[in-house]
């Protein structure tokens, strides 16, 4: 993209000024720690949204219930917002908490857990100040300290990935932070190339079949325009970073890809009053989605499609056959809920709802340039994952937490494997008081057939006050866990994980 034109867009665009100040102050919207504590005492499942009070946990070796399968060896890294309160002030938006990275290390028939807060500049500055003083993604924080750029506000709280043995904590509004893969100590933000310092590297990179990693950065969150398309080699060295021009200042949290194409689904958004990004952001549901189909060998060019609006955070798989692309996405019908998921729970209120959505297929016809949605009938899911070995021309089986039967918490209490095209589902229900999180697919070593593998996912057992982990056979989800292990305490819920085999 022409740099001058880009700068002009930057200067004229009424874009998402994530870091813009508000001239007028709204009435205080923050959460109240005392109100949350009262809610938690009555509704133990609210532990999923509590604040940690320690910067590290473990290492703790846990007893295994059941039996870990032969060959299941490696570490499930997970990340999520964890530090929610300081100095009597509580974040009211789930995405605001400082990231805590967990390592659940399996090997020799045992599992050990450890966790550590990501020592971002934001966390260290606020720890020294004894209060939150940094612009947050969704909560209005009073008496803000000035920041140099978006990385000064980076919470590194959404996901993790491993590239060439190096562990990274990710959030969508800034740099990846590298961590020590054993101790989980923070090594610092990564600059892939000097001119790319502090640019956003989303929390949802995707791994190609050659081991290289694609990702995007939402430059419009920083007041610019366009999407930055990242390509990191399997060796952890930057291959390319290109700016893709976009027709609207849309928002996206994740993306999908086929063997040949990257697929970016931009949600049209506008901005209202408020200080933080999610306070100001408004989905423009009357406008169509804009979908970029980008050939991997020409990342600055896109074929653009339009389709009916949908609020989406996460995608499942995508595949490509005879000039058509199908991608699967979880749609959220309640736009306010989508803007601040589980907001009531952040306030300690039991009437929280949501977190889950309907699985729909977006069909893109590359020849006609037309796109349309098709419902799958699969509902009440989020965080869908799949076996990355699935052939690029057919639908993958999806693995996702879901809701089944009686449930006390307005979150997931089960995990299921979905064969969408055949209309089949295999499900395990953990219980009415268990909160189930994302389950990561782990291929069985030495087995080539797709979907031969395990699911590993974390749980919060609110009735017994414990956080744990379960391993299931991905082909026999309905048999329940092969092995589970529990910490003697609860930890707040997280978002996304990555399994690194050893």
């Amino acid at each position, binding site marked *: 993209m022409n740099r001058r034109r*880009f*700068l002009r867009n*930057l*200067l004229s*665009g009424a*874009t998402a*000024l*994530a*870091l*813009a*100040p508000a001239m007028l102050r709204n009435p205080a919207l923050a959460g109240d720690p005392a109100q949350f504590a009262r809610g938690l005492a009555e509704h133990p499942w609210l532990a999923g949204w509590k604040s940690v009070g320690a910067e590290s946990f473990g290492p703790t070796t846990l007893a295994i219930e059941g039996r870990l399968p032969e060959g299941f060896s490696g570490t499930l890294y997970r990340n999520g917002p964890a530090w929610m309160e300081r100095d009597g002030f509580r974040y009211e938006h789930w995405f605001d908490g400082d990231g805590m990275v967990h390592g659940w290390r399996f090997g020799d028939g045992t599992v050990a857990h450890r966790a550590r807060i990501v020592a971002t500049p934001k966390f260290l500055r606020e720890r020294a100040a004894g209060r939150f003083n940094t612009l947050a993604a969704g909560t209005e924080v009073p008496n*803000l300290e*000035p*920041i*140099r*750029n*978006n990385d*000064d506000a980076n919470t590194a709280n959404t996901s993790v990935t491993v590239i060439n043995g190096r562990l990274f904590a990710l959030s969508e509004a800034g740099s990846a932070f590298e961590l020590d893969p054993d101790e989980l100590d923070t090594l610092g933000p990564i600059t892939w190339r*000097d*001119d*790319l*310092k*502090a*640019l956003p590297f989303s929390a949802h990179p995707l791994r190609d079949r050659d081991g290289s990693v694609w990702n995007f950065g939402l*430059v419009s969150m*920083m*007041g*610019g325009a366009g999407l*930055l398309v990242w390509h990191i080699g399997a060796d952890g060295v930057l291959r390319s*970073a290109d*700016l893709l021009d976009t027709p609207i200042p849309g928002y996206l949290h994740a993306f999908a890809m086929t063997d040949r194409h990257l697929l970016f689904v931009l949600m049209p958004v506008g901005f209202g009053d408020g200080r933080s990004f999610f306070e100001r952001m408004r989905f423009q549901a009357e406008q169509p989605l804009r979908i970029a189909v980008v050939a991997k060998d020409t990342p600055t060019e896109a074929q653009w499609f339009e389709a009916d609006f949908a609020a989406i955070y996460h995608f499942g798989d995508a595949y490509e056959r005879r000039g058509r692309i199908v991608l699967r996405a979880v749609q959220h019908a309640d736009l306010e809920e989508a803007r601040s998921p589980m907001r009531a729970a952040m306030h300690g209120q039991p009437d929280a709802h949501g977190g889950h959505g309907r699985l729909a297929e977006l069909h893109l016809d590359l020849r006609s340039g037309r796109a349309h949605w098709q419902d799958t009938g699969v509902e009440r899911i989020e965080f869908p994952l799949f076996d990355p070995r699935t052939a690029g021309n057919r639908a993958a089986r999806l693995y996702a937490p879901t809701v089944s039967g009686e449930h006390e918490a307005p979150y997931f209490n089960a995990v299921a494997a979905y064969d969408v095209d055949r209309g089949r589902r295999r499900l395990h229900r953990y219980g009415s008081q268990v909160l189930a999180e994302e389950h990561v697919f782990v291929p069985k070593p030495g087995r080539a057939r797709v979907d031969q593998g395990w699911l590993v996912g974390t749980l919060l057992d609110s009735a017994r006050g414990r956080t744990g982990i379960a391993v299931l056979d991905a082909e026999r989800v309905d048999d329940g866990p092969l092995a589970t292990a529990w910490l003697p305490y609860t930890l707040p819920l997280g978002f996304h994980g990555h399994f690194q085999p050893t």
Partner: protein
Amino acid sequence: MHRLIHFTRRLSRLVAVVSLLSAAAASAADLTVRIDGVRNQVGQLMLSLVDSSAGWENQVKPVAGRQVAADAKTIELVFSDLVAGDYALMVFHDENDNGKLDSNLIGMPVEGYGFSNNPQVMRKPTWDESRFTLAEDGQVVVIDLR
């Protein structure tokens, strides 16, 4: 933020020019500047002092420029013999000694910077937001580098 990005390009040019100048006024007021929050002790701090809206907007030359080693978390220096009156200061931390305030691909500053009065804005502050009055018996100005 976008105005800040635009501003940083101009600030770089401005300070490169004024670092060659020296204070040349003939009155007696001393301006003491303390810069807090120098994040690392490498490179130079580059300051420029202006005495008008036109100077702030880069339309006339600054009154004085100064380059000083960033060898402590707090740096103090004095502009001597200034005429009493209104001034504003801008400063950036040239960590890698390349003579400019570095920014990334989209123009976001990635080295430290600050302004007199420390205005709480994510853009270049205005002359009025950064202006202070230097009395004849001198003045101390504290800038928090961001």
